[in-house]
């Protein structure tokens, strides 16, 4: 299978030069469901940031969806991000926009026609069981509902990869299960590569998944 994410001797650090990830090599194939675990502060979220280009590699190579992230131009980075769906623990919804417009965001950015976008948004909100809430604003919804909106937004533009940073970190058991089901559905039905950073892998997972663990700056695969 095609390697959709490829890292060789990847080193990541912030401006203070403290190395977070040290010379790690790994790859993720198209259609994989991947969990990245590790203790708090181990570098899970840092690794995810580097996968959507918010943190450039300090050393080594990193490519996502065939795009090399070393010294990437802003034009190329925007292009990559238009093919990636991102889900955050704090949802990152635009609070001044309605649910419908939030889900439509990646379609607006990718230049889809309004009528096509509206149909797609309606379909996705039905999928996440929020089609009756499309005129509401994020702060009018519960945390679980907001995360379902974020999931719908991440899926809106049919991304090749979904990156999720502790997507159930703020949710109750029921809402968490809904999110896991949606992520599994994206992987099995849409063949989207899913990379999830989490503290705990849910026991209810039905898909085969890969598991990377980060410890002392090293990334290794858990069998």
């Amino acid at each position, binding site marked *: 299978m095609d390697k959709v994410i490829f890292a060789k001797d990847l080193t990541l650090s912030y401006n203070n030069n403290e190395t977070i990830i040290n010379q790690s090599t790994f790859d993720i194939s198209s259609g994989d469901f991947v969990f990245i675990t590790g203790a708090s502060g181990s570098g899970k979220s840092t690794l995810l940031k580097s996968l959507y280009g918010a943190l450039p590699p300090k050393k080594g190579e990193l490519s996502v969806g065939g795009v090399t992230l070393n010294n990437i131009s802003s034009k190329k980075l925007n292009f990559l991000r238009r093919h990636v769906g991102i889900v955050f623990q704090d949802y990152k*919804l635009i609070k001044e926009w309605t649910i419908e417009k939030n889900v439509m965001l990646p379609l607006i950015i990718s230049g889809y026609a309004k009528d096509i976008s509206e149909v797609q948004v309606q379909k996705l909100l039905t999928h996440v069981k929020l089609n009756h809430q499309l005129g509401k604003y994020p702060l009018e919804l519960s945390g679980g509902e907001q995360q379902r909106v974020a999931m719908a937004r991440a899926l809106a533009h049919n991304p090749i990869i979904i990156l999720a940073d502790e997507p159930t970190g703020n949710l109750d058991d029921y809402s968490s299960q809904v999110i896991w089901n949606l992520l599994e559905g994206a992987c099995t039905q849409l063949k989207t590569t899913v990379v999830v950073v989490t503290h705990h892998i849910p026991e209810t997972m039905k898909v085969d998944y890969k598991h990377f663990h980060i410890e002392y700056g090293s990334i290794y695969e858990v069998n």
Partner: protein
Amino acid sequence: MKSIKSHFSLIAALFTILFTVQVYQILDRSISSYEESLRANYSMVVISTSALDEGPIKSKFPLIRSLVEISPEKVIKRLEKDMDKTSLGLLRASLPKFYKLSLEHYPQPEEVDMLSSKLTNLKSIKQVESFSQTHDQIYKLLLLYKGVTQIFAFAIFVVTMLLIAKEMRIWQFQHQDRMNIMALFGAPMMLRSAVLFRLAIMDALIAASLVLAAFGIISANGWAEPYFADINIHVTIFNYATDSFIHFGIALGLSTILASMLILTHKEEV
């Protein structure tokens, strides 16, 4: 409410700048108008032993607008009763030529001195009468007001620009989340900052419209003109075409430059 407050701050700051610009323009126009009336009434007299040609003189001295000969006949006619024809003929032949010089603009004393000395250097010119002492107090007072207004206008411009920059910094914080989220989904810079530009342009249009409305009303009701007419100045308080163009230009220019600076200095959250 917060949003209205932040809009009001930018509109008020832009309004202040535009109001000052218009006051400065009125003062500038009143000085130009007064200079024009002084210039129209100002002339120099040149006495020459031979006839002067206007063309070469004008090309040699760009300050000179026209050169008109003053006929001596009026004076000679007064002497007709006391002198015979032969004596009058001799007098007419021996009289020098008198010319009235009109200038392109109301001259500064140094310009008058320089022109006088250059004209006197010409072989045929015997004397130049300049009247440079007629610089009047109103003109000097207007020049003083203009200078003071320039200083105040500059100070107001600096202070209001700082206020606008601060206001826009608040906008940036308000819009930062949305801009960051849009960036995460690959929105190009223009799309991310479209809202900031829209707000800046809207506020610029409102501020310019308010200033135009204020001076339009003052002009339409003729509230200011009588005060200027009292000192013999006829000034246009508000010119709908040029003033609108200037105010909309300044307001849109300033707000878009500041919005662009904000966007260029915006750093994506890591």
